[in-house]
């Protein structure tokens, strides 16, 4: 258990050491001012999402009233969304996010484990390749992605979105899993192996459970990234029913539609769960994003 706690992706907090110059006799006034400033800033960063939620609860006819708060709260908006066409787009989003997550784990787990445990020819090359994919973004090579998947006949297909999202989120998973595997002592695995568990038995019964926090971080991160993805989906899907929610919502705002409340209900459904999920892995994400280059 100790091993996992000391995993390299350093959480950005340490209560004892983080108030270096205040010491223990920090004046009360200063603390109050600091807290007040922090709360104001926190509010600013939450503000657009508060507006999003408030707008989603307005009745359709008063959606475009110039008032800060809804005069009437229409909770049913979040229910009617499910019978609108956007619900189908949410299903596509869910398929893409879940598919990419499974793909990334299937591909990244063995690669991260092997590079953490063995020094093989091409290991450095592989790590460079992973770092390069992390630096590149799908937007930069959109034309190439479009041409390639058109040739495959995979336009309007969930599979192309799963592949692209999986590929571009692989790096994060490799870094974070690599760090966890490297921090788990080889002896633990050897011991389980000698107990008659077999190579894979030892891997599944000892190493993988110890790396679980890393696996969960990689899982949530990939899921969110694929869930939020927009540009590739905008390029690779043309039929409205085949588009994930981000693309569908974006085409909504172009038109002067009546049912804007569905747009905001959709935004709330697409955004709030993701923010909560992200809060769970927040401590480890910086490590995964910078590990490849900061070492």
């Amino acid at each position, binding site marked *: 258990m100790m091993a996992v706690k000391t995993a390299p992706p*350093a*959480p*950005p*907090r340490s209560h004892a050491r*983080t108030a*270096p110059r205040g010491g223990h006799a920090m004046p009360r006034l200063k603390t109050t001012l*600091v*807290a007040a400033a*922090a*709360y104001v800033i926190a509010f600013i960063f*939450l503000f657009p999402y508060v*507006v*999003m939620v408030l707008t989603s609860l307005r009745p359709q006819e008063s959606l475009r009233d*110039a008032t800060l708060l809804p005069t009437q709260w229409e909770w049913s908006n979040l229910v009617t969304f499910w019978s609108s066409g956007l619900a189908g787009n949410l299903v596509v989003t869910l398929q893409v996010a879940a598919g990419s997550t499974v793909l990334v784990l*299937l*591909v*990244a787990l*063995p690669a991260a484990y*092997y590079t953490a445990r*063995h020094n093989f020819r*091409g*290991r*450095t090359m*592989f790590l*460079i*390749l*992973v*770092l390069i994919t992390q*630096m590149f*973004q799908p937007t*930069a*090579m959109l*034309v190439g*992605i*479009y041409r390639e998947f*058109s040739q495959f006949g995979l336009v309007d297909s969930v599979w192309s979105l799963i*592949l692209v999202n999986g*590929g571009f989120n*692989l790096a994060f998973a490799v870094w974070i899993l690599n760090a966890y595997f490297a921090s788990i002592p080889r002896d633990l695995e050897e011991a389980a192996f000698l107990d008659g568990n077999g190579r894979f038995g030892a891997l599944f019964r000892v190493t993988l459970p110890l790396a679980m926090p890393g696996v969960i971080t990689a899982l949530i991160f990939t899921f969110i990234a694929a869930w*939020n993805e*927009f*540009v590739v989906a905008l*390029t690779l899907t043309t039929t409205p029913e085949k588009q994930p929610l*981000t693309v569908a*919502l*974006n085409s909504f*705002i172009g038109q002067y539609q009546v049912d804007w409340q569905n*747009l905001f209900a959709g*935004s709330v459904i697409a955004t709030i769960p993701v*923010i909560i999920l*992200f*809060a769970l892995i*927040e401590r480890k994400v*910086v*490590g995964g994003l*910078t590990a*490849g*280059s*900061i*070492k």
Partner: protein
Amino acid sequence: MRRLRPLEPLAWVGPAVLLIAVVVIWPVIEMVRSSFLQISRVGVVRGYNGFDNYDKLFAEKDFADIMVRSVIWVVAVVALTVLISLALAQLFNQRFPGRKMARWALIAPWAASVLMTAIVFRWMLDPEVGVINQIRLKLGLIDALGGADADQLGVAATAMPWLVFVAVFVSVPFTTYALLAGLATIPSDVYEAAKMDGASRLRTYWSITLPLLRPALTVAALINVMNVFNSFPIIWAMTHGQPGYSTATSTIFMFILKSSDIGESAAMSVVNFGMVLVITAVFLKISRWNRAVA
């Protein structure tokens, strides 16, 4: 450990390499190839046409403006992001009640889809009902809702600052967290020593905190450069690069070209990509990562 068979690494690492090859490397090759092809609107390849796509691209009357704007966009967004994040990291590093909650609030724009955030900002800037315009009306900055003054996204002069604002807004959380992680690695005895020497706060920050924060700062800044350079959803959702091309960056321009001339769009991508490669090279050189990994 037991002797490795030469093909063993391939079984473990192979799938990852294959995925990278299909999704990252192939598109790069296809993109470069397309930039030298004449391709019809429906995607039929009419053969190689040398540098015609590039000539056409460089001859676009908006090209120079778009390139200059792209550079300004990246520099402005990243510089503002870094400055604001340095201040916020310092603030959120202090101890105060409710710090955990306040830090959580900071996560929201990072976790949420950039597109959703941009859509909400567009809604808040709506000339007739937008919250931001309601506030501006109350502050006396505009005379009425719905007029030209309220249409901030309708003119490049006011739209650009808002686009930069939103881009900074979504970049600050990651950057602040990266800097907080950097601050956590600075041992407290360094500060005690500085205090003993009677160094002022500003002096301590300038000659101790900042230099020790440099690795975190460099990585965070360069990750931001890559993100902002390729940033698409903000401008696309808020202005589509309009009016004209007056709020378009090279990435937006590439996307617009894609529907009229894929070959030219590919040429724009290659130019973009060249810049990305330069940035990556700088990134690798500065962080000197290969020494540690190997």
